[in-house]
């Protein structure tokens, strides 16, 4: 009996040391690659989704703050001092001035007054000002102003975006507004 036991145990050790067959290896590799692909795809998709939702919220918050601040400044202004499609300067009741500039090179939209400058929007891909006179025309339109002193209505629109993994996909914020100077 002891001899039989030793032979049987050696056979068992040999069996436990045997490798996988080719079919086992192929099936395992296939299943493993499928699982890994699913995990990586899911992880990337979920990460992108969370980043996109966060970007939407962040861009919306910045756009609302900027529009509120700019609406206040334009409504309180005594006059428009200077105008370009990417910048306006307004004079205040106290004699100070406030300027809004969009810099296409840095994609920053900056508010400047006597106390300093502040970046209101980052990642601003497009921004455009239009100015109009006080007299309306048909179909809710207004005559364009040719000089800053004629300006009564300021039209502004912008588009901001953020990148996800180097690509600008579905993370943008669009804002448009018309604001009347209440002087």
């Amino acid at each position: 009996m002891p001899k039989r036991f030793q032979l049987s145990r050696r056979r068992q050790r040999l069996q436990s040391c045997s490798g996988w067959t080719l079919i086992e290896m192929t099936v395992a590799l296939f299943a493993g690659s499928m699982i890994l692909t699913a995990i990586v795809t899911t992880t990337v998709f979920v990460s992108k989704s969370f980043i996109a939702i966060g970007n939407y919220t962040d861009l919306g918050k910045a756009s609302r703050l900027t529009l509120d601040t700019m609406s206040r400044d334009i409504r309180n202004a005594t006059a428009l001092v200077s105008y370009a499609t990417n910048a306006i300067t307004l004079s205040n009741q106290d004699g100070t001035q406030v300027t809004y500039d969009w810099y296409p090179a840095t994609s920053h939209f900056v508010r400047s007054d006597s106390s300093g400058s502040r970046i209101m929007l980052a990642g601003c891909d497009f921004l455009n000002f239009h100015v109009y006179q006080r007299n309306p025309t048909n179909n809710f339109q207004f005559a364009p102003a040719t000089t800053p002193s004629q300006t009564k209505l300021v039209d502004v629109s912008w588009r901001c975006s953020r990148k996800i993994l180097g690509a600008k996909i579905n993370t943008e914020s669009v804002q448009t507004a018309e604001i009347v100077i209440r002087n």
Partner: protein
Amino acid sequence: MKLRFTIEATAGPSNGLGVAKRAFTLVEVLCSAAILAILCLALFYGLSQGFGMTQTAREALRATQIALTRMEGLRLEAWSTNQLFNPVFVPPNFTESFYPLGLNGSSSTGTVYSGTMTVKTGPFTGDSLVPSYNSNMALVTVVVSWQDNFYGRTNTFARTNYTFVAKYGIQNYVYAQ
């Protein structure tokens, strides 16, 4: 020793150290796969709902922008020369898009918004708190409605904004200058 050998032989393949190797049963695998599938479904459903709510919030914000733009422009429509109540100057129906022309960087305009704008003069009745000067005011109602299509479901939304225009307000003295 004999007893131990017998147990190993009946328990399944041995690793030679006296510990039997056991795999998951089919029921265990099926249960774990079902739980994993439920978790994945919940995750993707949550994400899609998050995207849907974000998209709805963006569209609602744009609708509010459109309504505010209409109401802001009203400040320059003169009451005295009958611009405010003239549908040629203030059309009762209008159409806007999510992306104003050129703002998207492409020709796509996105969601289309349909709007109505009504200007109703006083006197307003039905409320004991209506002020005596209410006949010198006009109630402006702007309704903006739109539809979106999210994962095959069509939803209809609408936003309503109200404002008052005073007969002797800004539009009167500005236009009279």
